[in-house]
């Protein structure tokens, strides 16, 4: 509707010979991607302004006799005294399915060399988050394909789950795994022809990342066949802070299109620590008063208004957000981490120690939580993994005590043994998400003691062999688990028979 009106208005503007009114100003100073402008008396807050040479800016500071603008694009050609014009528009980005499989910049312009994007619609970058009336509680699962997460820290469609940890602990890998898993589920679901199937489209927003890392992520997604369901929004370390500041909002606008049009989307913000740093830089140059760690006073609102845009809408779709925060030396009590922890519906905490011990994904079960909890889990996962979190927590506690002495009673020894087996079972290589039906079967085998006789070091290999066996020979059983989403007596019987066959053939 709005696009049609815009087209008509553009045509009228082209034909009209009437005088066009423009509100202008002149650049007084320009530094570090921020311009101070004289004039622009009609400019609105967050309005897009036009600089010479095609660069655009956003009016962020409206003062008594000057306007502070961040510039998106090349600032090299701009100089003091250049004329700036208001546009009367808020910054908008192209949205829609045409963006899938493409890499775009913070303004939605293609950067992948695959030609122009044929997008008919645009959405404003800044929007008010959906209110409470239109929202629905989070009850539908969004499978990450990571067993430790899906069984113990489940994520639902429309949830905001923070992924937090030090550098090099596998934060991005978890999100890439999740995107790959959505693509796998989409392919199976769309091929099944089930009219109730709702695919999940993904948006990966890279903020302040190295260009090489973005290329690596893109290659991983392409290799896994997930790029066709994914939009990549990149404002890399080489981009100016204004682009890095706007990129997550652009990504959110693209995700909102899917949500508003009855589809489900997943958005990854990688990462919001760098986003806060970019915003701090802009704010300091704009001479806004600084507070704790030199961040401006509205740094909480910066992230809360972004993450509130993730929702599950009544009668429409959903937008699930996976923001990433990088901590320093595991300090989750720093300013930005505590802010984002308080905004999100839970966090997945990744520990360097676990990562270095070879426990990957390095999810710290004790510190990770999902506030949506089991509401976003299928019954089958609850049946096989309901007690896992408690058992693992107990294991960690016992393991800490067991270090001090060797005299342990039989019960403690068995608990320790079981705990170590669960830890081994949850080890999973990167970019290999496990379908939920195979997760259920793997955990069921654990519950029924199928790995008990094995050497501890061989549990991971045994679980992988079991999944391979089931995937190649028991497809019908797996389809039943997936469609029924619960284990009844019949299914358990079939599963037991399949596992007995596997046990007979498996040699450790």
């Amino acid at each position, binding site marked *: 509707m709005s696009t049609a009106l815009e087209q008509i208005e553009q045509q009228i503007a082209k034909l009209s010979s009437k005088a066009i009114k423009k*509100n202008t100003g002149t650049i007084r100073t320009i530094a570090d991607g921020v311009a101070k402008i004289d*004039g622009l008396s*009609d400019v609105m807050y967050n309005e897009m302004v036009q600089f010479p040479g095609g660069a655009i800016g956003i009016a962020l500071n409206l003062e008594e006799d000057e306007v502070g603008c961040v510039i998106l694009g090349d600032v090299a050609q701009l100089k003091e005294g250049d004329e700036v014009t208001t546009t009367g528009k808020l910054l908008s980005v192209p949205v829609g399915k045409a963006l899938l499989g493409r890499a775009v910049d913070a303004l939605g312009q293609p950067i992948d060399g695959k030609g122009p994007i044929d997008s008919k619609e645009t959405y404003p970058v800044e929007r008010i988050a959906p209110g409470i009336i239109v929202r629905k509680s989070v009850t539908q699962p969004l499978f990450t394909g990571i067993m430790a997460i899906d069984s113990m820290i489940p994520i639902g469609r429309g949830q905001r789950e923070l992924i937090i940890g030090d550098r090099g602990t596998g934060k991005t890998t978890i999100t890439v795994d999740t995107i790959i898993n959505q693509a796998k589920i989409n392919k199976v679901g769309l091929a099944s022809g089930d009219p109730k199937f709702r695919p999940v489209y993904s948006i990966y927003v890279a903020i302040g990342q190295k260009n090489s890392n973005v290329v690596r992520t893109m290659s991983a997604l392409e290799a896994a066949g997930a790029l066709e369901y994914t939009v990549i929004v990149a404002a890399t370390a080489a981009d100016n802070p204004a682009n890095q500041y706007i990129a997550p909002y652009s990504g959110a606008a693209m995700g909102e299109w899917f949500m508003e049009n009855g589809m489900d989307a997943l958005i990854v913000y990688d990462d919001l620590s760098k986003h806060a740093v970019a915003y701090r830089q802009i704010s300091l140059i704009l001479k806004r008063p600084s507070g704790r760690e030199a961040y401006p006073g509205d740094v909480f609102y910066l992230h809360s208004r972004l993450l509130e845009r993730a929702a599950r809408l009544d009668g429409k779709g959903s937008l699930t957000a996976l923001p990433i925060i990088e901590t320093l030396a595991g300090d989750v009590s720093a300013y930005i981490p505590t802010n984002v922890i308080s905004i999100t519906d839970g966090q997945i905490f990744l520990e360097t120690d676990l990562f270095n011990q070879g426990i990957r994904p390095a999810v710290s079960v004790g510190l990770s939580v999902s506030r949506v909890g089991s509401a976003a889990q299928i019954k089958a996962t609850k049946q096989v993994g309901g007690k896992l979190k408690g058992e693992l927590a107990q294991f960690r506690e016992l393991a800490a005590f067991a270090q001090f002495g060797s005299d342990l009673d039989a019960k403690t020894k068995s608990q320790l043994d079981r705990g170590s087996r669960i830890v081994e079972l949850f080890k999973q290589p990167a970019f290999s998400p496990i379908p939920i039906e195979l997760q259920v079967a793997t955990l069921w085998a654990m519950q029924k003691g199928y790995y008990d006789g094995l050497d501890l070091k061989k549990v991971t290999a045994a679980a992988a062999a079991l999944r391979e066996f089931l995937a190649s020979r028991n497809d019908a059983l797996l389809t039943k688990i997936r469609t029924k989403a619960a284990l009844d007596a019949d299914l358990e019987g079939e599963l037991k028979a399949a596992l007995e066959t596997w046990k007979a053939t498996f040699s450790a």
Partner: protein
Amino acid sequence: MSAHDRSAQQLARQLFKLTVVDGTVSPERVTGVLEFVEKTRPANPVMVLRAYRRLVAAELGRGQAVVEHAGAVTKAMLEQIAAALTQKYHRPVTATARANPALLGGLRVHIGDDVYESSLANQLATLAASL
């Protein structure tokens, strides 16, 4: 912005407020302000005067329309433009002409921050952008 800059801006704004009488810049008051700055020597007088100049220029610009033209503009046309703008902006506006062959044809009127564009060059630029 340093404390010095801020206080200079503040003083300039105060002086500017004193300069405006009945919605227009009073030349007598401007002379008075300059004498005051000369006599009292506030901290960073150059910055104060620069800020003051900017405010006065902006205010004068709001009452003075510059009509850029590519063809001929008659005195009657200028008077007509000035009358229309006086009515629109609810303040006395005078119009001065400035030839600009780059417009190719038509007019461009600057008043304060506003620009009214009715030139051939602009229409061609719009057409080029839409292609």
